[in-house]
């Protein structure tokens, strides 16, 4: 049933009217060649050219994007370095300003303190001086009063005695 074996026996005994066999070369050959060339032309137009262009364009696009990206990366790195530097500068400057302000403030405080001390001293001196004056005046008055009192006492004593 399955065994329909048709074997070949390459005996071209009755090959008179019709050619055949494995190595039967005929007009198939040139027609096949022409057909192949046509297929090549068609595939060139609808496959190799459009897809080749697509691949090349993509390559160019990727190359461009890549170089652009690396350019941008370099720029970004440069900017970052710049920012870093300016940040460091700014920090240094800020520290300087703070230090200057602190020194300034200290100086001012010291000056104010000195002034205040001086003022206090001069005020104390003035008060002392006034006190001394008043003391002297009071002593003078007291002496006067002592004199008059002693005069009165003397007069009374003498008057009563006389």
């Amino acid at each position, binding site marked *: 049933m399955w065994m329909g074996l048709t074997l*070949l026996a390459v005996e071209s005994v009755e090959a008179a009217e019709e050619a055949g066999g494995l190595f039967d070369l005929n007009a198939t050959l040139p027609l096949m060649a022409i057909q192949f060339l046509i297929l090549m032309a068609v595939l060139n137009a609808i496959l190799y050219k459009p897809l080749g262009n697509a691949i090349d364009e993509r390559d160019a696009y990727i190359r461009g994007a890549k170089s652009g990206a690396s350019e941008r990366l370099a720029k970004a790195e440069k900017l970052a370095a710049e920012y870093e530097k300016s940040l460091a500068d700014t920090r240094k400057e800020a520290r300087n300003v703070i230090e200057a302000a602190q020194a300034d403030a200290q100086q001012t405080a010291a000056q104010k303190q000195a002034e205040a001390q001086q003022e206090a001293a001069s005020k104390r001196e003035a008060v002392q001086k006034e006190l001394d004056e008043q003391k002297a005046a009071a002593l003078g008055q007291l002496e006067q009063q002592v004199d008059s009192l002693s005069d009165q006492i003397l007069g009374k004593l003498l008057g009563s005695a006389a």
Partner: protein
Amino acid sequence: MLNTLHFFNASLLAKLEVGEHYYWKIGGLNIHGQVFITSWFVAAALIGVAFLATRKVERVPSGLQNLMEYALDFIRDLAKDQIGEKEYRPWVPFVGTLFLFIFVSNWAGALVPWKLFHIPSGELTAPTNDINTTVALALLTSLAYFYAGFRKRGLGYFKRYIEPTPILLPINILEDFTKPLSLSFRLFGNILADELAVGVLVLLVPLFIPLPLMVLGLFTSAIQALIFATLAAAYIGEAMEGH
């Protein structure tokens, strides 16, 4: 004419015919109809897939475009390796069509159940199963490398026949004949042998047993397409660079 020996009643699916052709007569010329039928199928398949793949070419490929770009990349690499970075581009269509046509032919012969389609005589098989096809492709390859050599180097192309020494002149001339001969017979023999081996095995053990041989057949079919295309590209490259 071939004697056909029928051991048993011929089954439709498991009959082996070798050297029988389905003749068409065109203008008094005999041609093998079964070869043209299957080759039109192959060409239609290639053109159809190519058309679908490039209908809307996108930068980010998907589906068929991806597949065909993979194939095209493969072909370009093949041509680039054999012909060289500078000269390979004009030869991509030729080498690529060789590869695709032979590959699809071989696989169509192995995968498409041709036996289901009846033709008056002979049977439908891979186009590469016919010596006319392989000789046509091999002769085109010869023409291609002659054309490449002459276009690149003009009449200086003939110098390669006496290089490196004039003593090798006969061998160098002989090479121009052995190249197409080996190309065509290698392909023809491999495909025919594979189909015959599978056919005989199917005849003897119809189920499962022939499968490994069929897989091997697919592998050798692909390899044969690669070999043909690679050698064609190598011959073209060799003709252009000289010795």
